[in-house]
């Protein structure tokens, strides 16, 4: 929680985006639609975790929010304006590293900045800062394949946030990591999100992770929303309200 090691982000925080699904039918254009229509509103700056059984459309939901997949019915909006395609406002963090293997770690983090037209020197500086923030300052010149799985996910975090998105959509980003690394990554995420103001939609199949990280939890496929009593508070792990929430989430699966 406390930003002991990391410095605060260099630029003033941007307001998080409000994302909304209005009666959306999720699915692929080839016809495999998911049952039911989803109504969901993600408040600016909140962390919404999404849990549900596998195959219930968690990834499809994220890709629809990102604009990579048009909804089969209904509308997706960001701050009230319809989402028509992918854009820099909504960064996507993948479960398996989507780092470009032919770019060094630094060049990967610089990529969103290059796309935004930031000049070379500022790009370099920003990337170094973000790598430092995720604890990989010494790895800037390495290739992605030379890093461990956890390190690669940290680079992905740095890359996603370096573009200063107003929303970060995360698809089980820590799903392939062991329990110890995963806890460390959750704390790191909490730390570096602090001050960015970005809205986060975080998909996970791990109920503990959902209960820990979220301000609210969305249950798929029903779309029911539950409030989290003690968001991102490790000390409250065994609090009665947290335990009750965990039970409710587990029962819904």
């Amino acid at each position: 929680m406390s930003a002991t090691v990391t410095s605060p982000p260099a630029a003033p925080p941007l307001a998080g985006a409000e994302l909304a699904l209005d009666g959306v039918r999720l699915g692929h254009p080839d016809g495999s639609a998911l049952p039911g229509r989803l109504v969901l509103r993600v408040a600016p700056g909140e962390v919404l975790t999404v849990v549900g059984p596998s195959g219930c459309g968690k990834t499809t939901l994220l890709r629809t929010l990102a604009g990579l997949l048009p909804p089969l019915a209904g509308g997706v909006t960001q701050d009230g304006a319809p989402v028509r395609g992918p854009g820099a406002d909504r960064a996507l963090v993948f479960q398996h590293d989507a780092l470009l293997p032919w770019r060094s770690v630094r060049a990967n983090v610089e990529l969103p900045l290059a796309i935004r037209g930031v000049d070379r020197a500022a790009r370099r500086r920003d990337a170094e800062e973000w790598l430092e923030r995720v604890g990989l300052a010494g790895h800037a010149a390495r290739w992605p394949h030379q890093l461990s799985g956890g390190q690669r996910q940290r680079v992905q975090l740095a890359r996603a946030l370096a573009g200063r998105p107003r929303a970060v959509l995360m698809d089980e980003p820590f799903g392939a990591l062991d329990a110890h690394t995963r806890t460390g990554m959750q704390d790191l995420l909490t730390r570096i999100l602090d001050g960015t103001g970005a809205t986060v939609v975080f998909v996970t199949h791990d109920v503990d992770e959902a209960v820990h990280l979220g301000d609210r939890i969305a249950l798929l496929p029903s779309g029911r929303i539950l409030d989290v009593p003690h968001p991102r508070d490790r000390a409250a792990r065994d609090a009665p309200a947290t335990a009750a929430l965990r039970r409710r989430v587990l029962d819904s699966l």
Partner: protein
Amino acid sequence: MSAGSRAGRRLVRAGSLLAALGAWQLLTAYDVNLWLRFEQFPTVGEVASALADRVGTAAYWQDLGHSLRRIVTGFLLAAVLGVAAGTAIARSRWAADLLGPLVEVVRPIPAIALVPVAILLLPTNEQGIVFITCAAAFFPVLVSTRHAVRALSPGWEEAVLTMGGGRARVLWSVVLPGALPGVFGGLSVGIGVAWICVISAEMISGEYGVGYRTWQDYTVVDYPGVFVGMVTIGALGLLTSTVVELAGRRVTAWLPRPAARGAAPRTAPSAPVPAPASAPASADVPAPLPEKEPVP
């Protein structure tokens, strides 16, 4: 131990080459005639002295320069056109529908059979030879590029799209660099067939060039001269494919490579790509490599 075995292997390689030359020399020096007839065959010594004579003449280097200029021009054209067409076919349904059938119909025609087309279409012989060389190298490059681009992980493109990148950015930052390992598979095959075709084309319609000279020597029954031509072609082929190979390794330095050296079984520095189709699949998907997942 590994150093010793490496020196040992080098010795075996040199020994193999020397043994072949020795056998050639013996068979020809003693005019062996056991169904295979070696009486007319030039000896190693005759070829070597012919080579030494030729190397001293300006004509030899002129021929060499002509052949090199033709192959470099044709090959570079083929590389650019092949990568562009292969990428377009893989990325655009329109390009696939418009170019795909055309490519599949023209591809089986041996490039050297295009000599009449070259003569009809192009004003000079020189351009004809470059055209045939280019046609030969174009298809392996196109096919490898097409497969390599199709094999790219969609996640990379989606990552760039969600950073706000457009089509051009995806092309330059994802598609082309990601396809490079496969493209170089095609270039390796392409430079090989380009040599076959430049030499054949020179034999048919050239003025100057190693192929032309080799055929001239044959028509005047100068067999040592023919062998000098063959040795020259072999050396030039080795040179150009090494250049392609080194360039390929340089631009794909990011590929995970086995750490073991020396002892690792090396199957001829990866130049011969068996089928262009399989090159991208094996070369440019680093994801399924066995990876440990250590705690950072």
